[in-house]
């Protein structure tokens, strides 16, 4: 069969374009630094891998789209392929967003408040707090450092009924946002009513693990921009 006897197959071209669209999503995530909105640092490598593989698959499909007897592209198939592209359109069109207090409410009853086997040493962060609330060894290590001055970044989830306290929260993700667990501390002696729910703040002050809760006595509470990596990784 001479190459000139081949014509483009509509179904193959369409499938190739769908794969290229998905490749486009992965390249977009890379170029716009949005990977951290969906994946942890541990699994961020999946995005370049997905970009390269989808690009190769799409181009390969397009390169092999000329056939001796092209198949027509039916109406149903066209809509199905459009449906496969729909998430690509949604994820690119949506403004960047992260989990917030709504997700905290849905997940708050998770009894472990996040988990990690990390042993508390070095500067204390909210991953250490999560570890201390789940692992006895980490809890003892954190308790040994009670009163130590810490600086923690997170978003505000209000403690109802207390004007001078709020919960400072951060999500901990291992692979992707779907596995997010919560780590939080109670901030006391905060400026009353100054910080709205979901506002990102930096709290500095001594830390006190008491029972199952961890408190930070606020020496300063400062509003900050949402960090580039809004989720923590254990």
């Amino acid at each position, binding site marked *: 069969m001479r190459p000139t006897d081949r014509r483009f197959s509509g179904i193959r071209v369409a499938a190739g374009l769908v794969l290229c669209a998905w490749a486009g999503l992965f390249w977009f995530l890379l170029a716009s630094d949005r990977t951290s909105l969906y994946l942890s640092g541990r699994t961020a490598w999946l995005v370049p891998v997905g970009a390269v593989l989808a690009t190769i698959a799409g181009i390969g499909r397009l390169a092999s789209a000329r056939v001796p007897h092209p198949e027509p592209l039916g109406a149903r198939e066209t809509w199905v392929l459009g449906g496969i592209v729909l998430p690509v359109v949604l994820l690119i069109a949506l403004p960047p967003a992260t989990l917030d207090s709504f997700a905290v409410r849905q997940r*708050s009853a998770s009894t472990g408040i996040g988990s990690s086997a990390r042993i508390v040493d070095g500067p204390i962060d909210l991953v250490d707090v999560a570890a201390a609330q789940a692992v006895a060894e980490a809890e003892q290590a954190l308790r040994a450092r009670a009163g130590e001055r810490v600086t923690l970044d997170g978003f505000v989830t209000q403690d109802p009924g207390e004007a001078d306290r709020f919960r400072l929260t951060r999500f901990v993700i291992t692979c992707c946002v779907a596995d997010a667990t919560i780590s939080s501390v109670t901030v006391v002696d905060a400026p009353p009513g100054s910080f709205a729910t979901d506002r990102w703040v930096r709290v500095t002050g001594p830390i006190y693990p008491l029972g199952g809760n961890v408190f930070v006595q606020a020496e300063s509470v400062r509003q900050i921009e949402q960090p580039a990596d809004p989720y923590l990784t254990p």
Partner: protein
Amino acid sequence: MSTDIEPRAARTSSVPSARTRPPVGWVLITLVGVAIVVRAADPADLPWLRNLMIVFGSLLVEAMPFILLGATVSAAIEVLVPATAFARIALLPRALQLPAAAAAGVAFPVCECGSVPVARRLAAKGLSPGAAVTFMLAAPIVNPVVVASTFVAYRGRDTLWLMVLGRLALGFVVAMTVGWVMGRLHAGELLRARAGSGGAHDGVGDEPRWRRFFGHLAGDMVFMTRFLIVGAALAAAIQTFVPRSMVDGLADLPVISLIAMMGLAFVMSLCSESDAFVAASFTAFGPASQLAFLVFGPMADLKLAALYAGSYRQGFVRTVIVVVGATTLVATLWIQVIWG
């Protein structure tokens, strides 16, 4: 070509009439319209919608590369490995096939989404359906990456080795049990019809190997992705609207706590490489309940159910859920009796 989209198209008239002309323009207009509406309405103002889209997006962004990897391996098997290789293995006694298939999962360090297209291809190439299903179910649990992540998640706890070794052992046992149940089926009774894998409709069987490779790769990708999208959407919706507090009150109830954690694993649809961290966070539940979560989830969840439904015949999803659920329940019940 191995999508069932492509062959179905081939079965229709070879000359598209004006009436059957593909509505490409309408599809493009719809997609552009959705983009404009989403951008203009800004769903970020609706907390539930924002939460839904973030979880939906994260499930897809994480799972798609694994599907791509699985489809690549699957296409390579199709064009590089002769069918006789698997047919010879299929002649071995099942008592050897199933453990070997489960052990093969050790060498396949991807999550559950990637193992589905590979197992389907193995069965289509002549490996016994029981062995292919055993491999598919075992690989997401027994591979070294998952074992390591379970170790890290439970490091520092008294139950560390119970969780790591228990998950590994139950992964083997449950996968082989399902493989045993499926063992008497033929590939035709297991696999959902997807004509065109050999290029019967447009002569791809005569094409060079690279063309066939990309045909199978693209076919598997397009085919699996639509089911993945459905599963991810369902899982995201449940994560958004069903609070996890619903299971908290069940932690102290024998048997019920096991079923509750299996149900939670089913609807959360987590990657097997991360689920140990989530299981470890349910400290109110004992190790047996957490093990039930860690064994059941990578074999049966919403995302996988959609992929299974697309890949295998009617009844497969039900069989997997029932057999995996019953075996996991019995095994973890013993663990609950002994360790709590």
